[in-house]
């Protein structure tokens, strides 16, 4: 209980500092506008058609990239985890490629896909697929051989092995994968939008920054931070529900 109190106090302290320090000129309000002003701006921005449209575009990009990357990455991950030969061949290269910062490939995506909707989806899906692939492979490998042996000894069919052993055993890791992949996916879309784009919330944030519109910039940051945190916490809540058995 004390810990919760201390955490809330810390949060209140940060928010109060954000409000008071610029308000009293201790921090330059041109660089960091007071929290109250930022929130007022956020309310105003959400009324603007241009901002709403940008949010819609970004959301569509995030969603589509997610829908492409998660099943694709999961399928590939399961494949290299389940097939010993493919695993031996592909794993070393995947591990090496995984270490490369994916953003250096962004110019290539622009050359191939232009600077529109497709490029954002393609780039975000590309970065996310890697994460999902690695985590899915790890999730499959986390299933103990003993668990499978037991089920087989009781005459489980292949389908039952999947539904009764693989899935429940992997569920905590799968949800974690979903959560982390969304972080990568979101980042991918925003980076692509900030780098070269005429649409999307990332593009708006980048141009507010370039034009020194700090209230708008921070309002955008608050909005995206809130969206990311809500998704993250929702999946984390699910995770804690299904992984109560993990000690």
């Amino acid at each position, binding site marked *: 209980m004390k810990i919760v109190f201390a955490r809330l106090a810390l949060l209140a302290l940060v928010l109060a500092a954000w409000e008071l320090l610029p308000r009293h000129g201790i921090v330059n309000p041109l660089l960091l506008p007071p929290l109250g002003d930022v929130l007022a701006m956020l309310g105003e921005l959400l009324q603007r058609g241009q901002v709403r449209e940008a949010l819609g575009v970004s959301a569509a990009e995030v969603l589509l990239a997610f829908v492409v990357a998660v099943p694709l990455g999961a399928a590939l991950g399961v494949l290299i985890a389940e097939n010993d030969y493919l695993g031996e061949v592909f794993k070393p290269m995947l591990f090496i490629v995984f270490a490369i910062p994916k953003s250096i490939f962004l110019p290539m995506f622009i050359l191939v896909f232009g600077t529109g909707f497709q490029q954002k989806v393609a780039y975000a899906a590309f970065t996310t697929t890697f994460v999902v692939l690695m985590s899915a492979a790890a999730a499959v490998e986390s299933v103990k051989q003993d668990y499978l042996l037991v*089920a087989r000894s*009781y005459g489980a069919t292949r389908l039952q092995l999947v539904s009764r052993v693989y899935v*429940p055993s992997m569920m905590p890791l799968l949800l974690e994968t979903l959560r982390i992949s969304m972080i990568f996916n979101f980042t991918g879309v925003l980076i692509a939008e900030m780098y070269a784009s005429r649409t999307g919330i990332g593009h708006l944030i980048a141009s507010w920054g370039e034009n020194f519109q700090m209230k708008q910039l921070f309002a955008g940051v608050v909005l995206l931070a809130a969206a990311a945190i809500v998704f993250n916490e929702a999946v984390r809540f699910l995770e804690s529900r299904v992984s109560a058995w993990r000690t």
Partner: protein
Amino acid sequence: MYGGTVPALENISFNVPAGRFTVIVGPSGCGKTSLLMMLAGLRAQTQGTIQCLGRPIPQPDPLRVGVIFQEASLYPWLTALENIEFPLSLRGTEKKEHRRRAQAMLELVGLSGFGERYPHELSGGMKQRVSIARGLVQDPPVLLMDEPFAALDEQTRMTMGHELLRIWSTTSKTVVFITHSLTEAVYLADEVLVMSARPGRIIDRIHVDLPRPRSYDMMATDVFGRLRDRIWQQIRKSDA
């Protein structure tokens, strides 16, 4: 496997009388577990035949042969009761009947009241009781046990052995029990089969004529000591 292959088992021939408690004992790596996997239909032998109740067992047949593994093989995402129901739930759909039978098994192994606990909320001995209940729930005439008590401390291990004999005496099952503990082997068995180091062969069959029910006092007797020594000598000879 890469490179050359070493046969795990060689010239194994034995029969297990119905309703008796047979213990297979041997040094680690002698192929005891491979043998049990073959008896369970979980692994195919390269040569020879295995018959169970007069028929070969090319794949797992849970209604003929139940397998009891080490305690770590319980599903951690299922409660004790759900673990026991697991074999039933792979087939039938009569949930109420499953629950009733699982509950009966839970009582048999002395765990009534712990059905809603998850494995991580149970002690090592209790987990092993659940595992035994899971092996018994389909009432197979043959039970195979692969070092079921290996992960338990010595004290719990002896208690569990005694418990197993109690449970076994209320059923009329044929048991094949694998262990590397000589004391456990003599305490439990009607007959002990001694295996040699790899490639595993049966090098001795020892009839244990201690009366039943067994009691802990018997371990201090000369007969018990002589039987254990004989197994130990056989294993040592084969290892040298």
